[in-house]
């Protein structure tokens, strides 16, 4: 790893490469890249280390599908969906209290929809199949173990762990996810920094569909998405709960350095959450179907790597493109958006006969113009704010107590007035009114 070494790979001749592009990783970013290239008539190989696309991938549960308009018109008629999210709820919690902001929209339950819950083995397979149908070649059960370089240090392909496993191409697109060993080998990404990553652990729990409908107030294919703050024993992060057809996904997302420091086991935090009085009734009788863990790059815009070099570009989580503006984890849509842009950029570069960093540079400008980087830039301060100590450790309790003070009937003692209540509750939680006001302004700036 470390800095790019410019030693040519022995045995790499300078004959014409076998493919226009090799894409590493059949996650959403890789499949979208391969799809865009195949549709442009380029020869492309998609290399995946798992036995099938999605077998190594874990997420929370919601895909914001509008980015698929470009992939398949009317995608909602064929995408493997579990439920369409019509209700979104954000909960602030303490050990015994919770306050939820609940939003429900009928429009979200109709085409083109807003978000859908789906399972990665199904979704990633569906997208990879689209790429294959467009003409891409998918090779599973194959790890890209390193980069091939020519005499000038230019990247000319990848090495895999199969016999005769060298794949030569004009361009390598690294869509190999959060640990991106290829981006690191290319010198595009600094060695991993724990503080820019969170660990997500998730339980998929069996619960019959009609029970989910009843408990969450849903009908047929309607779903809910609940994000929770303040349920992680002070470790920056949060919890999530998503409804699938006949399972629910429940998990926590935890800042790595703080998790390590707290010496708490991740599954204990899930157990806490499952036993919380606001969550437990939803899950009564549910049984564990699968447990999973995966990292999330949460640094946002400011930690993204250089995205292009001679003969290679990086897309999706490999380029730290998950938007974690709060608990609203969006990564699949950004992965697909950046993959499509990568595909277009490679197509243009090959057409122009220039696959150097300069020839591929249109990738970055394309991204800046789209939601992919525009959103990231807009929310660039969000990770720091949401993971800040006050938001994580003090505000959930503060807000719950505030509401408690307003809602609890204390007759015959008169209710305290709003400002007095706020001041006393804030003081109890070690927050000054000035800070509260400042954070509100900051939040408005970050998210507004």
């Amino acid at each position, binding site marked *: 790893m470390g800095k790019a070494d410019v030693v040519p790979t022995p045995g790499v001749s300078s004959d014409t490469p076998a493919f226009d592009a090799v894409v590493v990783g059949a996650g959403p970013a890789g499949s979208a890249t391969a799809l865009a290239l195949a549709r442009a008539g380029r020869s492309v190989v998609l290399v995946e*280390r798992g036995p099938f696309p999605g*077998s190594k991938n874990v997420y929370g549960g919601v895909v914001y599908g509008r980015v698929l308009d470009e992939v398949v018109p009317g995608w909602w008629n064929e995408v493997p969906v579990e439920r369409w999210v019509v209700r979104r709820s954000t909960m602030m919690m303490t050990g015994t209290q919770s306050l939820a902001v609940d939003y429900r929209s009928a429009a979200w339950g109709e085409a083109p929809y807003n978000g859908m819950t789906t399972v990665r083995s199904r979704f990633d397979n569906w997208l990879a199949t689209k790429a294959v149908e467009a003409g891409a070649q998918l090779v599973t059960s194959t*790890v890209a173990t390193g980069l091939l370089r020519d005499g000038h240090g230019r990247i000319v392909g990848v090495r895999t762990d199969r016999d005769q496993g060298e794949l030569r191409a004009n361009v390598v697109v690294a869509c190999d996810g959060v*640990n991106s060993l290829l981006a690191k080998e290319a010198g595009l990404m600094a060695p991993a920094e724990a503080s820019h990553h969170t660990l997500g652990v*998730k339980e998929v729990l069996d619960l019959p569909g009609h029970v989910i409908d009843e408990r969450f107030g849903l009908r047929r294919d309607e779903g809910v998405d609940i994000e929770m703050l303040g349920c992680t024993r002070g470790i920056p992060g949060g919890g999530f709960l998503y409804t699938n057809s006949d399972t629910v996904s429940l998990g926590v997302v935890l800042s790595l350095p703080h998790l390590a420091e707290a010496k708490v086991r991740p599954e204990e935090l899930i157990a806490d959450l499952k*036993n919380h009085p606001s969550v*437990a009734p939803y899950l*009564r009788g549910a049984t*564990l179907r699968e*447990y999973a863990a995966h990292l999330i790059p949460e640094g946002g815009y400011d930690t993204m790597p250089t995205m292009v070099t001679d003969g290679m570009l990086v897309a999706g989580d490999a380029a730290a493109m998950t938007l974690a503006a709060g608990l609203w984890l969006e990564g699949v849509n950004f992965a697909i958006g950046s993959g499509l842009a990568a595909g277009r950029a490679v197509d243009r570069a090959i057409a122009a006969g220039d696959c150097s960093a300069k020839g591929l540079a249109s990738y970055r400008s394309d991204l800046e113009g789209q939601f992919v980087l525009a959103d990231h830039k807009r929310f660039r301060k969000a990770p720091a704010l949401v993971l800040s100590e006050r938001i994580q450790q003090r505000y959930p309790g503060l807000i719950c107590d505030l509401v408690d003070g307003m809602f609890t009937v204390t007759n015959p003692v008169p209710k305290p007035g709003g400002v007095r209540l706020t001041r006393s509750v804030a003081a109890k939680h070690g927050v000054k009114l000035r800070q509260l006001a400042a954070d509100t302004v900051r939040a408005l700036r970050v998210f507004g």
Partner: protein
Amino acid sequence: MSAAGGVPGSGHEVPGGTWRGISFEDRMSTVEFRVGERAHITVDSDVCRSCTTKACVTACPANLFAPTSEGGILFNYEECFECGTCYMVCNHEGAITWTYPDGGLGVVFHHG
């Protein structure tokens, strides 16, 4: 609820007794692992002996790092999620060698 999972005050008790605790083995048995012959992650126990944090022990979601009585680490690669937590929280350069399992092997998620 079993005695192991339901000790009052352990954080595992259940309001109304409805949420049953689950042992770590049962938890991991819900996950498919196609175990390869090569250890894709190795831990140099000699380096670990001088480690003060032992951060890997609690942070690894698969609970694969077991501290030994000599202050080192016993590591099993078989039931690994391939997440990357361990090498990121590890505070000693060179303690962990981290690669992916060979193609087609390792964890297989069906409901990720």
